[in-house]
């Protein structure tokens, strides 16, 4: 069974997404989006535009050699499995996937016999860098829990690139991760997608041209945090009222900019609206440029959120945690919303009480887009084992799902939900060479990532300490170089 035909058509490559790789020649449908995203390129020098990328990625891939991994079991991340398969990496990209590939001159040939090759793992829900190790008070940078609406904060401004958690995640085969603000707030701020590479700056880690995301949170967290302070939101209905008030404000803000741009482009002498950081982000969602990543546990709450998205004309990309996704796979599919879940965690609060181990497999098998996530600096190191558990539990419940299909839960699904699904997350010709060579079947507890390539550069080798990054913080500590 291949996965591709059943993938819900995520709106990641529409005109609405400012992804460089998607956008060429595609955004004639809406002058609004071009007005919003056009930077200073509109030809009207005096017209005020909003700079959408003031902290641009400076990521430069390390040099990629030409590498041929030969004779491995290949899981391509989109449902395909090739026995005795080869993967050819050239110029940082996947050059070919198949059997019996010829090694180009000068290629490094890696014997994959008895081992597995997969796309690198992508964690769509991480707080690495924002809640780094060690977890001291100065490092509590993930929740701007001072107001329930803080769409104006950007988590990239909290990410500490020296978090040792990044290198532990790399040893677990994680090549891309999406760092989110915490869930104390209705609107927690912007998330950021990172390459799992060492950098002196966050900009050096930013995934080039990945769309921004917005963290929103349902349920107990916002109402507990603010209710305990005697202010709104203190209830679920307060949460909903809080979101809706913000969306009304954001809609008016968007309209004011569009009116301004239209008038200015017509040569009228008009003043631009006053720029507002919070509303810039919400407008980005309404324009389809920023993807909503929403923390939400209960089925009934997810349904309310999906109705709200229709009310205000935006799209929810992914529900995170979504422990009750298995109750509403039909609604998720109908609204084209994914669920990012744990394999088997729950019970820590009331809205997590109905966790079942089959959540991921049932949501997937019943037609919705589902994937794994960690939300944890330790869990991110073993997402292969997490999908293995989810797969095994699903099979025991009678669901017919292959290992090849399940690998999508850790690679192509999160890539799509982050708007980078045509760049990474699967082993297809032309894709970024984000590749893991596993010591055996990655659905086994005993298997380890032997080697990890990011954009074709060998970035981790389990047997070569020269290829095991050590963040500044760990130098001179007892755990320096420990895995």
């Amino acid at each position, binding site marked *: 069974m291949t996965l591709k035909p059943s993938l819900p058509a995520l709106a990641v490559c529409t005109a609405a997404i400012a992804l460089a790789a998607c956008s060429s020649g595609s955004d004639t449908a809406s002058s609004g989006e071009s007005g919003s995203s056009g930077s200073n390129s509109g030809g009207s020098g005096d017209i005020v535009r909003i700079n959408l990328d003031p902290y641009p990625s400076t990521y430069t891939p390390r040099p990629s050699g030409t590498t041929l991994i030969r004779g491995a079991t290949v899981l391509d991340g989109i449902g395909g499995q090739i026995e005795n398969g080869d993967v050819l990496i050239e110029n940082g990209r996947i050059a070919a996937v198949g059997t019996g590939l010829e090694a180009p001159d000068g290629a490094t040939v890696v014997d994959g016999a008895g081992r597995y090759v997969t796309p690198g793992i992508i964690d769509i829900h991480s707080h690495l860098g924002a809640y780094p*190790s*060690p*977890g*001291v008070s100065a490092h509590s940078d993930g929740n701007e829990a001072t107001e329930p609406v803080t769409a104006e904060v950007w988590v990239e401004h909290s990410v500490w690139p020296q978090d*040792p*958690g990044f290198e*532990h995640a790399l040893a677990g085969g994680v090549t891309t991760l999406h760092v989110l603000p915490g869930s104390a707030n209705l609107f927690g701020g912007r998330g950021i997608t990172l390459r799992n590479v060492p950098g002196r700056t966050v900009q050096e880690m930013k995934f080039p041209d990945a769309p921004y995301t917005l963290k929103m949170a349902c349920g*107990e967290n916002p109402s507990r945090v603010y209710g305990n302070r005697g202010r709104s939101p203190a209830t679920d209905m307060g949460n909903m009222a809080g979101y809706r008030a913000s969306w009304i404000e954001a809609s008016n803000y968007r309209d004011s900019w569009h009116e301004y741009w239209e008038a200015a482009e017509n040569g009228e002498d008009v003043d631009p609206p006053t720029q507002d950081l919070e509303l810039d982000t919400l407008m980005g969602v309404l324009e389809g440029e920023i993807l909503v990543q929403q923390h939400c546990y209960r089925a009934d709450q997810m349904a309310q959120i999906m109705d709200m998205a229709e009310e205000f004309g935006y799209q929810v990309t992914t529900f995170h945690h979504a422990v009750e996704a*298995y*109750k509403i*796979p*039909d609604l998720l599919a109908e609204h084209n919303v994914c669920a990012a879940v744990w394999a*088997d*965690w*729950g*019970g*820590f*609060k*009331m809205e997590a*009480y*109905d*966790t*079942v*181990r*089959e959540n991921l497999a*049932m949501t997937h098998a*019943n037609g919705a887009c589902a994937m794994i996530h960690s939300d944890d*600096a*330790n*869990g991110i*190191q*073993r997402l292969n*084992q997490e999908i*293995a*558990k989810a*797969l*095994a*539990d699903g099979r*025991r*419940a*009678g669901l017919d799902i292959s290992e090849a299909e399940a690998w999508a839960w850790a690679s192509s699904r999160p890539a799509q939900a982050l708007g980078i699904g045509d760049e990474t997350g699967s082993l297809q010709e032309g894709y970024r060479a984000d590749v893991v060579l596993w010591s055996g079947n990655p*659905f*086994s*507890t*005993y*298997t*380890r990532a032997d080697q990890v390539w990011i954009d074709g550069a060998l970035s981790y080798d389990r047997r070569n300490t020269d290829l095991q990054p050590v963040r500044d*913080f*760990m130098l001179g*500590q*007892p*755990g320096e170089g*420990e*895995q």
Partner: protein
Amino acid sequence: MKQLISVLAASVALAAPAAAQTYAVTNGRVVTNTDAGILENATVIVRDGDIVAVGAGAEIPEDATVIDASGNWVTPGVFAAFSQLGLIEVALEGSTTDDSANESPFSVALDVADGFNPAGTYLATNRMEGVTRAAIFPSTGHNIFAGQGALIDTSGEADSLFQAGSFVYADLSESGAGRAGGSRPAAWAFLEAALADARGYPGRFSGDHEGDALNRYDAAALLPVARGRVPLVMAVNRAADIRRAIRFKADNAPIQLILVGAAEGWMVAEELAAADIPVIVDPLEDLPSSFDALGASLQNAARLQDAGVDVAYSTAPTADGYFNARLVPQHAGNAVANGVPWDEAFRAITLTPAEIYGVGDRYGALAPGYAGDVVVWDGDPLEVMSAPVAVLIDGEPTALESRQTQLRDRYINITDDTPFAYRR
């Protein structure tokens, strides 16, 4: 008359707990945790709650119910060394938790046996994953002493708490230092003073006199620890704190000490082995999560075990102990991936914890005289994709059903026309 039933049928045929009887678990790959090692195509005979025979040639009694384990693994039940099963239902809802009591005037005197709920829904979810016995721990409240722990089985039966007052738990790690007033010296001063109070009980508390650290109830509860009759389980992580704990044991004979946490245990492995102090570690704790654990390593378990330390595994701190104690086989499997021999890793979640709590002659092995805690797995129990197909506790098959499986079954057929609330 022999009865032949499949393992799946065995788990279903349980509507009412039958009177104890005889079971023969046949033809399995039997992990004994004894000198006999792992036996192929072997049989385990359980009669009236206890194991009576184990071996390839074990004769199947006429009256035995046969559980065919062909192609399966048969092991002693998993013993969760550091859990909170039955103490917490919804962690963030204080009304549903009985592990800690910040507002109580008492500490050592708090006994989890008074809070354990065998009907808690995670007993079944953990039992289904092969956990048959567990040590249950209080959490710390207003000082370094959390209270007294107990030993349970996961049957959910009224008598499933089978030993109370099994140990006293105290936190001497970074967090304990915080509770003691703000420093490690404060935590150790409190511990030493508390022991003196206990040793002085009851004379020191005559008339209006109070203890230096503990009130009279808490001092009375700590007395068995001071006398070495009940072990003290101590949370420590930093290598220096572990050395301090080793010295504490030497200075306070006949006290029995068990360490939990020990993130930097590998740095003092030889000393721990020499001091004969058992350690409970989480093999997955590898992050410098605090300045207490800057030496955390995936090699911790292997290095400790190589040095000869008695090591049991826990899920905490990387996974909780009330909901996911069931993940300890996964943690053990990862220990294997990081260098621990399989037999030793499996022992660390079965026999070793039983030994640490003084019940290693009854639980944790498949041998005559041991309780009939037998798990039949559909594969290697340390593989994440394996799961039990039968779980016997005290010689009786248990139901492999839980609130979670009921929810699963209600929603798995999303196109069923019956309204959800009518599906049971």
